[in-house]
């Protein structure tokens, strides 16, 4: 065999190997997660969206069309009580609102395809009622009552907290800590301990929380939240109020 044929054969073999190697790849032509799932959680007592915060509840999705034992996927709530995820794989799902301050509900089996919307209604553990406030100088006094839509089997009520922030997004994950002091033994404690299962006395009490030290010229947003000793210890909230503080 002479040299030029050798080089041709080598080149040909080399090219063949390259082509074979290239054909060993697979193009990923699976569909991407291009469905979206959104909705809201209605408070059965008020008929409006549940008063909550970012991550105040989770929408749990289990993709039954993928596996018999799917790993749960969670969509966190938004501050206005809605949830939305625009990157969901289309399929057959078991959907459950969970990890929030409401009575457990049953999961719903449904298809998610394209733009899917779903509204759920839940019964909160507690409602904050008769919520009033007085802002004077550097202090804010909030008063409220608590009612329980269902009392049988209600978990123990732990305490009530004030939350103050300088944006409308205020809750247990967004608050200015010095206004909420909960540290035990601290004389400046602002939270109210309840530590009791439901009784008529709790329903009859008007609770008062006083926050001091608001800075002049600022606008604050505040609310109160009450939490119970269930698995998740999330808060049931009041509305958010706007508190402008006069400049000195």
């Amino acid at each position, binding site marked *: 065999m002479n040299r030029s044929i050798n080089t041709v054969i080598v080149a040909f073999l080399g090219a063949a190997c390259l082509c074979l190697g290239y054909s060993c790849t697979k193009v990923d032509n699976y569909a991407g997660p291009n469905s979206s799932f959104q909705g809201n959680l209605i408070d059965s007592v008020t008929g409006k969206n549940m008063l909550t915060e970012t991550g105040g509840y989770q929408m749990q999705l289990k993709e039954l069309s993928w596996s018999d034992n799917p790993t749960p996927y969670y969509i966190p709530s938004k501050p206005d009580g809605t949830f939305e995820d625009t990157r969901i794989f289309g399929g057959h799902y078991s959907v459950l609102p969970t990890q929030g301050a409401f009575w457990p509900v049953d999961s719903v089996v449904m298809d998610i395809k394209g733009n899917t919307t779903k509204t759920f209604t839940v019964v909160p553990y507690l409602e904050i009622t008769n919520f009033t406030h007085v802002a004077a100088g550097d202090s804010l006094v909030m008063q409220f009552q608590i009612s329980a839509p269902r009392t049988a089997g209600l978990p123990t009520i732990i305490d009530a907290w004030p939350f103050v922030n300088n944006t409308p997004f205020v809750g247990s994950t967004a608050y200015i800590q010095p206004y909420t002091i909960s540290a035990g033994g601290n004389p400046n404690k602002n939270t109210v301990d309840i530590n009791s299962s439901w009784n008529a006395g709790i329903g009859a009490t008007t609770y008062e929380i006083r926050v001091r030290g608001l800075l002049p010229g600022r606008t604050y947003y505040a609310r109160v939240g009450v939490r119970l000793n269930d*698995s998740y210890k999330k808060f049931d909230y009041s509305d958010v109020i706007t508190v402008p503080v006069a400049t000195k």
Partner: protein
Amino acid sequence: MKKISYISLFLVVLIAASCRKLDVAPLNIIKDADIFSNENGVKAYLASIYGTLPIEDFIYQPNHGFMKNDGGRWQCFYHPGSLDGELVGPYGSTDEAATGFGFWPYDNIRTVNYLLQTLPKYASAFTPDQVHQWMGEAYFCRAYFYFALVKRYGGIPIVRTLQNYPQQSIKELQVPRDKEEDVYNFIGSDLDSAYMLLPETNLRGTASKYVAAAYKSRAMLYAGTIAKYGSGNLVTGDALTKGFVGIPAADAGKFFQAAYDAAKLVEGHYSLYEKNMANKEQNYADAFLDNSSPENIFVKDYSLTSGTAHSWDATLTCRYMTADGLSRCYPTLDLVERFGGPLPVVNNDGTPRRFTDRADLLQGLEPRLLATVYFPGATLRGLNFDIQRGIFKTFTGSAAQELSNNNNTPNEAGGNLLMADKPTVLYNGRNIMGFAGVSTGGDDYTRTGFYVRKYVDYKKAQSACGLYQSTQSYIDMRYAEVLLNRAEAAMELGGATQADAIASINQLRDRAGATPATASLTVDSVRNERCKELAFEHQYWWDLRRWRIADQALDNTKFYGLLPYYVDTEGKYIFLKQVEPFQRSYNFQKKYYYEPIPGGELGKNPNLFPNNPGY
């Protein structure tokens, strides 16, 4: 023709010769007989198992694991104590580490099972005592692995024989979860086997009879409290209803009895370190640094030459006193107050007590406390723990108003309070912050006014206190813990055993220089004793979980420090109890009582479902 016939004859011979099977074992692969037929082989095999034991030592990090050969293992401040309130440290929140690091050591468990299955086949090469010892050590190690698994996940698959693939089908190999209680029973029975088989003494760092008994007292106590303090505090879910997490309350007594009995077996074989009872503070500090301590039951050693040295000295004390590295975790005042209540820093009228010398605070404090925590005014390597948060030009009013540390009190207004980020910043010729803290610049100086003292090697020269230069041994089990396990089990059993608990606690208190316990001892005081005695020893995180109080103890909780200030117009010091300057909150969600089963394992083995609740 002749040529062809010769060639074909030649070929036939060759073919006939090749019909013999080449059944010679490969010489470059180690076979069972190489290891298990001789003493050195078995010892080497066991040594490799000991090397992988999940010991939570100086370099263990709760969110990264056992850090073997990991370049980040110098950061001893990523300590579980920085999650549970013993320390404030580099973790921004409990969430950063509460779900663990996906620990799943079934490969190491297989290595142990392999020895348990194979060594008996070669028993004729050894004396019965040798075989018993090695089998006992293997049972101990297997129990150690399963205990590390069950305290994280609850019920996991119990694999006690070798699995073989492809001889067994995938379906057969997808072993389901066992109940949490069954895993604890399995650990108990492995430790019983170890106890029966092991000799009374063995080499340093290996298992022997009473080592097994000591660990049994720990594991059974955990199971007892998990049963007694129940699952009422856990997240509801399938795993709870099926018994994969939680143990029935009716079985608590049986576990407490097993813990108590196991602890009693250890009595007389180990004793508390009391070589220098004339100076109880020095004695207690030395107990953690003296390799010959009779209290050490199971230790892990480190050396420079083997490349296993750790960095405790370089990272638990401020850089001012070390060769390199930096510190980032500091004892809380909450821990310090366990020892004798609030420190004497407040007068009867509520004003802060004035001190001429910061070291005056140390007078009358419990020797064990002073040996566990470095206070302002203490000394190390000839240097003073010069800790000062700032200078008040003047100070009036009560200590209580300063508690929340929000820079909004009259004493802090109008430039009356000076703070600094470096010790070189002066006011009237005096440094505003101390050379050992507290800085406004970062967390490489104390945030609480304290530094860890336990395990710090005070004899080391400053130049030798650098990264990867510390060699003090880690004591994973010491006799003090056995006494605490015994006392807690005794109190939980109630009745006549309470007197035994008082005796155990008083041995610890006598050595510590603390006031003795009386008949009014309660379960809470035994728990508090455990927190004091085992501070920073990787225990409290697990204790909070098994007592089911973690979600209340760490409930958006902030921790306190004791911050020294100099009052300029008075020329005196005051100590203020204040929330530590970073004001971090620590919050333990109920689902964290159990870690999630690693997702990769769930993918391989759907029989591991249900996952732990809340995940």
